């Protein structure tokens, strides 16, 4: 029966068959179920122990309210108003606020499920695909007629199968506590839908990460999982305690944490924010996108969070497909990157202009937007920059392409085998064109110039970064990807670290900050000659490095006989 089910699933997806056959055995199943029951039992006992003891006077789950009958000279009435006093019923038992008790268990189980699914699942997927690539077994699958979609769906469904079972074993308790907390079933199911979407998103991202950073070798698994865990932990804390978000582009990050949806579920219990005191309902309700209150209503809010995940999954899917068929291919084509940039710029801009009355903080908000755009373009450098071999092949055999397709500018804009510098510049131009109206119409007049110049300096900086990365990628060493990545990190953080070490304020000592990703902070009080010095020096560096790049490409593209003759 069990094997028959695996066989039937395998008829639908061959990869799923392989994963289930390798992982599902009697021993693993028993251990998983027992472990899940132990964890559930432990959580139940912890909450059981949180109920009032026979001698308790106050407790979170008691229902008695402060009567006001104390001497205000010795006691603070405000403090006592926040407490729940334990009162007994006619049978001598405490009257317990069972819905809150159940809600606490429900939320606890939800957060544990989110972390287990996303972190442990991603870890397993990164480790699994890394092993397949290192051993060479992945190549056999690449050579088979299996589609990229079929392969990755099989991996996502199959590799974390024991994690799924672990969570599924806890589902009855989760459902019961949710319903006992008076959360509508449809909302609980919506939460599950978000959880599934988020897992698909993070699992796809983990798979893409595995296929991209093959040179990180031993570090790859822990680095990837570590970054994910840290981000999730940060978002979990923000969502749990924050009553209202900051109202800028960073609010978007909340949409990537599935626990955000729990605020809707908590709100639906009508137990009152003061009683529950976490996952505050207004946190999401106040977020807008281009001033549209998309997250006020639970269902539209959940819908948009799922759409957010789906858009992400779509783009990651493109990268996965490309890397599956060709392990050396860039994650996206240049053409695709232009479209992605348009979408990204609109999404981030939408979160940046959340309300008309935030103009007092428009400088901060737009600065955050520019930083995020900058980081996005750094990501594009990794996504679009071709490897040494690709550039060499292009440079060596360019003369053999048909005359019509040989135009250098056209090749630099559209062809994936050419240097990425011009494509990154175009992407930055797209970002700027979408951001500029916001700078001119939303920001206060006194900040406009600094923001504009900041945008300009960011442009030269990003081109400088792209050229250096591209140059590092043409190095002869096998570790060139690692060098390029390290170079990018150093270029990005060194001005900030130096600034912090010397405790230099951007406005007082602006020079260092003009080379960082936040030049606009220094530009408000920066003398114009200093700006021009920085700008011109960056332009000169770009010109020199691109000259070097051209020379390098010419050298790479030389015929073997020419190289031999020169020796």
């Amino acid at each position, binding site marked *: 029966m069990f094997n028959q089910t695996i066989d039937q699933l395998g008829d639908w997806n061959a990869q799923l068959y*392989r994963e289930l*056959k*390798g*992982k599902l055995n009697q021993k693993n199943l028993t251990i998983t179920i027992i472990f899940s029951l132990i964890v559930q039992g432990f959580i139940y006992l912890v909450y059981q122990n949180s109920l009032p003891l026979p001698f308790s006077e106050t407790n979170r789950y008691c229902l008695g309210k402060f009567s006001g009958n104390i001497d205000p000279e010795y006691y603070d009435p405000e403090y006592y108003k926040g407490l729940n006093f334990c009162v007994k019923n006619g049978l001598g038992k405490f009257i317990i606020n069972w819905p809150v008790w159940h809600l606490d268990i429900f939320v606890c189980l939800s957060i544990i499920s989110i972390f287990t699914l996303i972190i442990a699942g991603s870890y397993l997927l990164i480790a699994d695909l890394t092993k397949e690539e290192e051993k060479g077994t992945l*190549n056999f699958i690449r*050579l088979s*007629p*299996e*589609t990229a979609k079929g392969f990755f769906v099989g991996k996502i469904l199959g590799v974390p199968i024991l994690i799924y079972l672990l969570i599924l074993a806890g589902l009855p308790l989760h459902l019961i506590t949710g319903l006992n907390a008076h959360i509508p079933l449809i909302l609980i199911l919506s939460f599950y839908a978000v959880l599934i979407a988020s897992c698909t998103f993070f699992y796809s991202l983990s798979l893409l990460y595995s296929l991209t950073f093959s040179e990180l070798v031993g570090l790859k698994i822990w680095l990837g999982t570590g970054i994910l865990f840290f981000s999730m932990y940060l978002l979990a804390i923000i969502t749990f305690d924050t009553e209202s978000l900051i109202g800028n582009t960073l609010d978007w990050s909340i949409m990537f944490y599935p626990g955000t949806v729990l605020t809707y579920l908590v709100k639906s219990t009508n137990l009152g924010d003061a009683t529950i005191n976490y996952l505050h309902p207004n946190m999401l309700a106040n977020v807008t996108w281009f001033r549209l209150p998309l997250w006020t209503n639970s269902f539209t809010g959940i819908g948009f969070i799922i759409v957010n995940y789906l858009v992400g999954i779509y783009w990651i899917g493109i990268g996965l497909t490309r890397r599956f068929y060709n392990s050396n291919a860039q994650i996206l084509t240049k053409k695709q990157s232009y479209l992605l940039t348009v979408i990204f710029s609109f999404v981030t801009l939408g979160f940046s202009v959340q309300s008309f009355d935030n103009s007092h903080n428009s400088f901060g908000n737009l600065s955050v937007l520019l930083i995020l755009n900058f980081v996005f373009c750094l990501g594009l450098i990794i996504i679009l920059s071709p490897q040494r071999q690709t550039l060499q092949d292009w440079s*060596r055999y360019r003369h053999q392409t048909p005359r019509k397709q040989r135009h250098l500018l056209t090749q630099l804009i559209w062809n994936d085998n050419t240097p990425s510098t011009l494509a990154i510049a175009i992407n930055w131009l797209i970002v700027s064109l979408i951001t500029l109206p916001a700078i001119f119409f939303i920001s206060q007049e006194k900040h406009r110039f600094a923001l504009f110049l900041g945008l300009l300096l960011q442009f030269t900086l990003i081109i400088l970064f792209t050229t250096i990365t591209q140059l590092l990628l043409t190095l002869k060493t096998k570790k060139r990807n690692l060098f390029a990545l390290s170079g990018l990190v150093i270029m990005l953080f060194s001005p900030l670290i130096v600034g912090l070490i010397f405790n230099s304020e951007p406005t007082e000592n602006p020079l260092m900050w003009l080379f960082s990703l936040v030049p606009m902070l220094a530009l408000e009080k920066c003398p114009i000659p200093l700006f021009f010095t920085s700008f011109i020096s960056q332009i000169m560096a770009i010109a020199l490095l691109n000259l070097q790049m051209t020379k390098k490409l010419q050298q790479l593209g030389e015929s073997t006989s020419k190289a031999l003759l020169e020796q």
Partner: protein
Amino acid sequence: MTENWAIATQRLTKQFDRQIAVNEVELQIKTGEVYGLIGPNGAGKTTLIKMLATAEKPTLGEIYINGDRLLNDDNHRYLKQRIGYLPDDFPLYDDLTVWEYLNYFARLYRLKKSERRERIFEVLELVQLTSKINSLIATLSRGMKQRLSLARTIIHQPIILLLDEPVSGLDPIARMQFREIIKILQEAGMTILISSHVLSDLAELCTSVGIMELGYLVESCSLKDLYQRLSGQQIMISILDQWDSLESELRNYPQVEGWEVLLNKQSVKVNFSGTPEQASELLKLLIMAKIPVTNFHSTQEDLETIFLKMGHQQVS
């Protein structure tokens, strides 16, 4: 023009950094042939096979499988069904059994449910692993793993088989078993491209050979042609005594080009340029000269000797 060939390449080139591993190779293999690829390590054999299997993207040039252009993307699933590729290393999944492993690949290659079971038993029988059907792969010997890899390579009944050093690291018995399997596959009508350093195996299996040097395909012809063109005839002669008489007869016979003395002046390997009739005449002369001949037989230079004689031993 390319339709007539099972495998055809046009100006197939692969460059790694400044090194050209495969240089404008024009390879043509007829349907049903067993084509042996010979060359020193680093001559470009593995790279060429990898490109034919779509495991490596060519820098330049085109590959045609039965006349259809082969590309490294997802649009050639139909062509992938026709190719079976066994690389020189053969990573397997240690956590699966032999049955599960083949079943997995049968599904990857879209074998119909009705024929899957039968086909797995068929290939297991062919590679003589039926007794290991439920064994974990981790418990198999190297030879068994090699045969299991071959079973995986042919599970989908490809019409083109690309084998890169399939017998390297195998003991003589495992090598012989492997050779027998290849012969069966050839009889089944598969076109096989096989690269190996064991030239005696290739001589036994192949109908054609190609020699690679410096990334170029410097020779590509039928084995028969190669022997005709380059293999010298040799005559092995053994006698009981009268060595001086034998030497004198050999010296005076015009078709004898030289000889090599073996086994303490009891045997001699004669390089002979004459026809079979002239060889027979030589034997007659020796008998008439009353030389006690115990052995007289004609042989041809083997593939290894021809390869070494040709001197194509440079790496790319």
